[in-house]
């Protein structure tokens, strides 16, 4: 239905050169450089802790982490999964809601004028203050609460980007299609939607990180919580500093994974918008 842009890379060519292409990709600068950066970062961290002679309860060092993971790996898997699915669900709801609101604001000037101040005001409220309210409002509904916060914190950039993408559509497109008798729906699927994709993915990258923060806020704050946030909280209660740091790293890892999933989707659906540098 939707005029989804075709990926620029031809699938036929990619499958033909299967193995060697994967090898080439893995040894490419794009992969080696970030890995090297991570290694350098870990070494510096270790050196810093070692040079200052900091004990565990001040600052854990990278070498403390593997034992922490080894001891609690089962918890990490369970909690990590909980955090992940709730973030993703919150994000999916944010995408649906954000796109709908963005469409309404993008197509109707009246709605844009009406909704914009409301949205900005809502976005300006620090979500840390909303967390306890939501936790009290729906006591015990832990999954629901977490998804709700992840959604609330992340839909704003999506709504704004979609509305801007739609309202800045050149009038010529509309005139050309309408003069041929195309319906509003056709104009949306063929032009407005694909044209908005680059802005949409830009916003989605921001939203992913935000949704993640939302999930963790809720997990840490609410009693008997679940997910990595709760694991962090229990580490804090037991003064288990290596565990706390291990959770932070796990969170960072999940964040990176989600982010790159979005980047991959962007490459597939909006790769045409990429300008080659130089």
């Amino acid at each position: 239905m939707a005029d989804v842009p075709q990926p620029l890379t031809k699938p036929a060519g990619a499958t033909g050169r299967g193995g060697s292409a994967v090898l080439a990709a893995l040894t490419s600068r794009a992969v080696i450089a970030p890995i090297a950066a991570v290694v350098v970062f870990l070494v510096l961290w270790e050196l810093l802790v070692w040079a200052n002679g900091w004990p565990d309860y001040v600052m854990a060092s990278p070498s403390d982490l593997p034992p922490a993971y080894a001891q609690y790996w089962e918890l990490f898997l369970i909690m990590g999964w909980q955090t992940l699915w709730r973030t993703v669900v919150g994000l999916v709801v944010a995408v649906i809601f954000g796109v709908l609101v963005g469409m309404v604001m993008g197509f109707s000037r009246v709605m844009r004028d009406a909704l914009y101040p409301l949205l900005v005001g809502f976005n300006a409220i620090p979500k840390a203050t909303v967390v306890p309210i939501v936790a009290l409002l729906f006591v015990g509904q832990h999954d629901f609460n977490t998804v709700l916060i992840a959604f609330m914190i992340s839909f704003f950039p999506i709504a704004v980007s979609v509305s801007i993408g739609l309202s800045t559509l050149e009038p010529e497109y509309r005139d050309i299609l309408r003069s041929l008798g195309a319906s509003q729906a056709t104009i949306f699927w063929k032009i407005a939607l694909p044209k908005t994709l680059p802005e949409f993915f830009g916003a989605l990258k921001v939203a992913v990180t935000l949704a993640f923060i939302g999930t963790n806020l809720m997990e840490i704050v609410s009693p008997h919580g679940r997910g990595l946030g709760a694991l962090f909280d229990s580490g804090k209660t037991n003064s288990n500093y290596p565990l706390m740091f291990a959770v932070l790293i796990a969170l960072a890892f999940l964040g990176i994974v989600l982010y790159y999933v979005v980047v991959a989707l962007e490459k597939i659906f909006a790769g045409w918008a990429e300008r080659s540098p130089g």
Partner: protein
Amino acid sequence: MQNLIEIKGVRHAYQTQSGPLPVLDGLEIAVPEGGFVAVVGPSGCGKSTLTKLVAGLLKPDEGEVWLHGEKVKSPRSTVGMAFQNPVMLEWRTILQNVMLPLEIVPTKMTRRQKEDRARYLLDLVGLAGFEGKRPSELSGGMRQRASLCRALVHSPEVLILDEPFGALDAFTREDLWQIMHQVKEKEPFTGVLITHDLRESIFLADQVVVLSGRPARTQYVLDVGTTGTRDLDHLYTAEASEMLATLRHQIEVAQGRAPAEPEQTATPDLPPGSAAQGMA
């Protein structure tokens, strides 16, 4: 003879925050089938509004627009449009961009036929070999040529061009004028060209309509006379200079910078320069 485009006593006003803004006021234009009319007039007088009325994108407040013996009430797929800004969908190749109208108008063509049609037109405007390129890889002149193909791909009866060459440099523009003639020979259409370039108007059109300032009415109609292919040298003949002078004078009248009667331009009480004539 029946006219393919007939604009009869058209009035139109936009509703703005400070009340209605009358834009067209008693417009009369008639273009025979296969004819090519150029419309010139002061900036902001309502030329683009006129194209929207012909395309059926706007309804006139008063008066009628007729296309091929039918009153225009809504958009119809027998119209092709190209604008000064040759918008292209960046995620599509040039070929796919040109084929866009065929995805919207009802047609019995197979995919293969649609592609062949688009390729044929691209070849006609000298874009053979660029079918697979992305719009961002093309120069402004090339994009404008592709935009012309897109406007023609569904074989419209009426081709509406709103300052299509306005943003191009002089040489590219003259190139495109000649391409326009070649295209018209192979792909007959009835044309409406909005332009600010008087030389362009007499080179491409067989009838030039001068609109008055806003609200626009038909102020003057110049019969260019020659139909069919013209070459650029024609623009430097005495006959052409005379037509250009007449048009320039009419534009000045439309802008309110010269009195309506050309004879009076010689009267001494006018400020010097205000009645500048191209012929002098």
